[in-house]
């Protein structure tokens, strides 16, 4: 009996819920305003699924044109412990105020305790507009 109660309870608590959501692309504006190696903080709204709640929430991303062809968008949280970092224009680096992690404009860790480069959004460009998809955790091998 204990097993008949405990097994479903463990499944109930530890298995992730079934996911019925699809990736959605959000238009975050013109690509043209992004200049080479100059990150811009983009604010947009996105439908977020949180448990039983679906709500339109404000999200931010740091978009950088790393080369003429390539644009990347970073998730707004430091990969160390999740603080919001910012762009230090004087030094041309991303600086995290919590534990002094420093990232380059292409997201790589320069110094500090951050274990991996900045997380990236999926990106695509359609009709001159930058579209952001879902946020993916970077691995420590990513540059």
């Amino acid at each position: 009996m204990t097993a008949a109660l405990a097994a479903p309870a463990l499944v109930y608590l530890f298995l992730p819920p079934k996911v019925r959501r699809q990736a959605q692309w959000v238009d975050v504006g013109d690509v043209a305003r992004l200049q080479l190696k100059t990150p811009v903080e983009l604010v947009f709204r996105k439908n977020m699924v949180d448990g039983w709640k679906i709500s339109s929430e404000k999200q931010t991303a740091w978009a950088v044109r790393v080369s003429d062809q390539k644009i990347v968008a970073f998730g707004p949280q430091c990969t160390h412990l999740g603080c919001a970092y910012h762009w230090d224009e004087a030094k041309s680096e991303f600086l995290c105020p919590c534990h002094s992690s420093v990232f380059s404009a292409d997201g790589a860790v320069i110094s500090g305790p951050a274990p991996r480069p900045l997380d990236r959004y999926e990106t695509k460009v359609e009709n001159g507009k930058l579209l952001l998809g879902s946020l993916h955790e970077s691995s420590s091998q990513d540059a």
Partner: protein
Amino acid sequence: MRRKDRLLDWLDHRTGIETAVRNFLYERIPASSGWHQVFGSVALFLFLVQAFTGALLAFNYAPTPGDAYNSLRYILAEVTGGRLMRGLHHWGASMMIVVVVLHMTQVFLYGAYKKPREATWMAGVALLLLTLAYGLTGYLLPWDNRAYWGTVVTTQLAARAPILGPYLLRLLGSEGEVGVVTFARFYGLHVLLLPPATTLLIALHVYLVRKHGVAPAIDDELRPQKKFFPEQAFRDTVAVFFAFAILFVMAVAVRVPLEQLADPTDTTYIPRPEWYFLFLFQTLKLFPGPLEMVGAVVLPGLAVLVLLLVPFIDRGRVRRVTQRTFAAAVVFLALLGWTGLTVAAVATTPKPVVAAIDFSQPTDWMQLSPVEMAGIGYFRQENCASCHTVGRGNPKIGPDLADGGIHKTAAWMIQHFKRPAAMVPGSAMPAIQLSDAQLNTLAAFLLKLNARNAEALQLAPDFAVEGALIYQKNQCGSCHAVNGVGVKLGPPLNGLKRRRSQEWVEKHFRNPQALSPGSIMPGYRFSPSDMQTMVSYLFVLQD
């Protein structure tokens, strides 16, 4: 001393655990103890199951109106094992009522409440009332129509209580209407106040049972006492196991419905209480007008009072259970009355206007346009699923229809339906004998189908599909819109249920101008069953 004994000894010195277990297991019980005394243990066990499953449900539950409903749907549709947890909690509640009443009946029949066990009995009656209070407060928590309307009636009833009524209503937070405040109060009662109260009362109840010992039968004094362990402990364990097996099977096999989100503007809903309160509901009907108070408050109040005072009313000496004919007659009459009232309540429940939909499952089909819904009708009629898988399932001879890649344009599909092999060389599919319009409908549905919604769309109930077929056949869509599809010449039909009664809609179908002067809608003469299906379908369309 062996090491194990030394360890136990050490532990017992510090905690007294061994002594406690020994006292518990080797409690002396009368020689007549037997199977009839297992119900108390079963009730206690069920209480623990309720506490456990309730806590787990609370881990995924948002106790505010609206969110409560969404989170429960989340538990049912998305959380693994969530349906089982809710099933256990729901059926456990019903079962607990049954077992508590059985326990009480046994004690009553055997006269086990007699001196000096009056207090034990009274604590038991209080526990019965608490059990019912769980049922009453828990009823609101899913926040579907059933929960909402059931609670509206309950709180209005409480408001009728003499003198106390208005205060009771304020206490329940229902002065204005049943809303956030009432919800918070009910949830607070259900999870914060009742469980500790129950725990304390159970402790008192069990303490009193231990203090006075299990009530002996008349000739027990002549026979040597037994010990609780092993015989009675075994019986209790078997009974608990048996109860749990029934509960588990019910939780797995019997689906607990979830109705649509509570809608205070719904005029078609017929509220009914949980089955164990139906007799009270029916009693109320026996006292119309100013006498209502009698059925609502006076009689139930008196019944509880009499129940509490049973040990003082029946002060005779303990007698053999077989000689307690009066007690047996009381139980029999109570059972008869309860059954009669409950059956009457069930029998007089009018058939709901709108067929019940189980909202604990995905309801994606509600978003379909009438064309696509009617397509499901032809899909089922032509038995497409006998050769095709849709989404999940074992591969069949035909391709998976939820695979978006195989559907091209509607025109291509219609040609394919008519002469399958001409469009897909080598296809073994037989031609579908339907008109172009019907094939077009079928194509519309298939184009909507994908791997993500396949399962959800298959849940479309028959009445809605048939309603959509009638809708299509009569070309309602050339003047009306459903789910944004159609012509907006006439009023859109979503949310019709909120605006009009079934009677109105039926009358309007027969003679539109009588109810909407100047309307250009032609009259429709549906057969009674078509009319019912049509209205059911229209009333299902949400805003």
